[in-house]
């Protein structure tokens, strides 16, 4: 029995041990703004202004933004720039072959990006939140930009106006597993040129954008959760009834 207990304890602990040894940049936790309508609206504005030029969200219709409190007039006046109709899908006008030539890769569709980027390291929103806050200037790259979360990324820092320009500081450190080798380790950012926003404001804006991306990944998600509460309440009540019905039949069985 002791053997069995040891075995079970080991099995329970092992995944945790494996987890701890995983490499890679730790992701910051993205604030949850998927139910905050004003944050989602701000996120939608940032998305249309900064992301939609190159990326599509081809599963998403503009008029779905009514779900986050915008009316069709507001959508038409503020978010449609190139003659789209309000019922159109969010598609970029950039041609895939141009994108390939300019950035080396076609920018991915962002409809469900917040769902696709989830991993054991964190949720999809965590990944995007950390990614959009990890750009630094790197003159060795064709775009002049690099990223800690996505090294050698093809996308330049589109939000640089807001965040300003930062460089990353690295230090060489001895590899703890192998004294003869050294590793290039990130130690911090340095603000070279201030942006339109302070660091706090920028984090806040990115959080809104990420909140929007999370909402856009599944626009029905808030309806789903609200409805779920009622479904469970109904089933809970029904269970009580059926439990008594069952008991009334089975009390005859001796």
């Amino acid at each position, binding site marked *: 029995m002791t053997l069995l207990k040891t075995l*079970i304890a080991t099995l329970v602990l092992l995944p945790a041990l494996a987890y701890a040894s995983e490499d890679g940049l730790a992701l910051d936790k993205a604030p949850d703004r998927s139910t905050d309508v004003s944050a989602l609206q701000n996120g939608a504005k940032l998305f249309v202004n900064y992301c939609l030029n190159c990326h599509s969200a081809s*599963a998403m219709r503009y008029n779905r933004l009514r779900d986050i409190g915008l009316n069709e007039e507001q959508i038409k006046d503020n978010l449609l720039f190139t003659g789209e109709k309000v019922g159109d899908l969010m598609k970029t006008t950039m041609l895939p072959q141009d994108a390939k030539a300019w950035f080396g890769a076609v920018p991915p569709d962002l409809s469900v990006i917040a769902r*696709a980027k989830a991993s054991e390291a964190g949720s999809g929103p965590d990944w995007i939140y950390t990614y959009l806050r990890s750009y630094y200037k790197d003159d060795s790259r064709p775009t002049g930009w690099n990223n800690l979360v996505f090294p050698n990324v093809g996308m330049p820092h589109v939000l640089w106006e807001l965040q300003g320009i930062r460089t990353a500081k690295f230090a060489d450190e001895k590899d703890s597993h192998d004294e003869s080798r050294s590793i290039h380790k990130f130690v911090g950012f340095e603000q070279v040129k201030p942006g339109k926003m302070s660091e706090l404001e920028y984090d806040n804006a990115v959080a809104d954008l990420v909140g929007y991306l999370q909402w856009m990944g599944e626009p029905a998600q808030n309806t789903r959760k609200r409805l779920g509460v009622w479904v469970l309440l109904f089933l809970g009540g029904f269970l009580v009834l059926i439990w008594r019905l069952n008991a009334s039949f089975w009390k005859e069985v001796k």
Partner: protein
Amino acid sequence: MTAFHEKQLPADAPITAKALNWVDARFPLTSTWKAHLSEYYAPKNLNFWYAFGALALLVLVIQIVTGIFLVMHYKPDATLAFASVEYIMRDVPWGWLVRYMHSTGASAFFIVVYLHMVRGLLYGSYRKPRELVWLFGVAIFLCLMGEAFMGYLLPWGQMSYWGAQVIVNLFGAIPFIGPDLSLWIRGDYVVSDATLNRFFSFHVIAIPLVLIGLVVAHIIALHEVGSNNPDGIEIKEHTDAHGVPLDGVPFHPYYTVHDIMAVVVFLIVFSAVIFFAPEMGGYFLEYNNFIPADSLKTPLHIAPVWYFTPFYSILRATTSDFMAYLMAGVAGYVALVLLKSRRGVIFKIAALIIGALIVTGMAIFDAKFFGVVLMGVSVMILGGLPWLDHSLVKSIRYRPDWHKYIYIVFAIAFVVLGYLGVKPPGVWGSLRVQEHILLADIAQTVSQICTFIYFGFFLLMPWWSAAGQFKPVPDRVTYHPH
């Protein structure tokens, strides 16, 4: 053949009675209702384990009904499939609910079916006279695996695509015909539109038809011999003057009301997942599957969905280094059969020849091929249970206590195999003799040990299941009134 006879009801009989009488003269409605529900006697001591059969039927219905609605909006076309799923999630009224019910239903199906099988294992439900019930069940399980595998390609995400690619490629490991066979299955040199179309066809019509037929056969066979029970004794051995088992209760209303209660409990759990965690942490809907299929980008880690992983782990455990152990295992098993089996000379000669052929084959052909064979055998071997189990009693309740530990070790091995199957290789690091000298990937070694435990459980069953001190089996079922 007797002449047509319609019972004459009085002229003032209720119209419903007349209608029923009219039908009964032409179709066995009342008699079928009686034979399968109101006068089908089930043991009164069935516990919660017996609810999973009814739940499996419920999930089958959920899958068929939601599937019908999904097919109305889904496009089986490589260029449109991914977008059509998102269209269902966004633009089709209640599409998100129908899709989540279907995707969660797939995992729920395997959960209830695995628990249904555990019940069979615990109480010996596959033993005589229920061998055919069990075999139909194994066939249902196989169909379900095919159904789930082909259905998983349809969303056309990265995992759909590469999972199908990996599994279809496995057929390529079969000697001589392999490459042509996998080409024939795919209908193209890679998984493509042709593959998507045929998988769609199999998923929505071919396999469901077979599945429904098998489920009917499973239930008819069950009702022919009657349900087993947690005591593993036959209630038909004690009947009253009318031939009604003394320990039986009519399925309807007693078990219908029981099963409805189980259904509500199930729906609570099912709804909690659908409404609050439809991705189930990446296990029910894998994150990578939200990226459209790309034949040029292979994901770093391709894992099948959780319900296939115990068997997939057995495939991965079969490395070329492992073949020597497998050959030793086969040789040892043949020696055991020759020395210990009470079967006749012909049986032993056959065992010797088959064993020699397997060992020779293992020496000649690729380890990958035997990985595929072991994966297939690990599922098929379930069908052998009625003949492998030589226990004196059916139910675990009256078996020697140490038998329970065998079941626990088997269950742990199965779960560990399942866990390792979702993880990339090397998840538990590696053992080193010295710095930098790799001895073994711990996860791989563990999955190899578990593979031995898995097959040992079944293949050694004729001996261990008959050994030990059995407890006295009661004459009548153990039942405590509610």
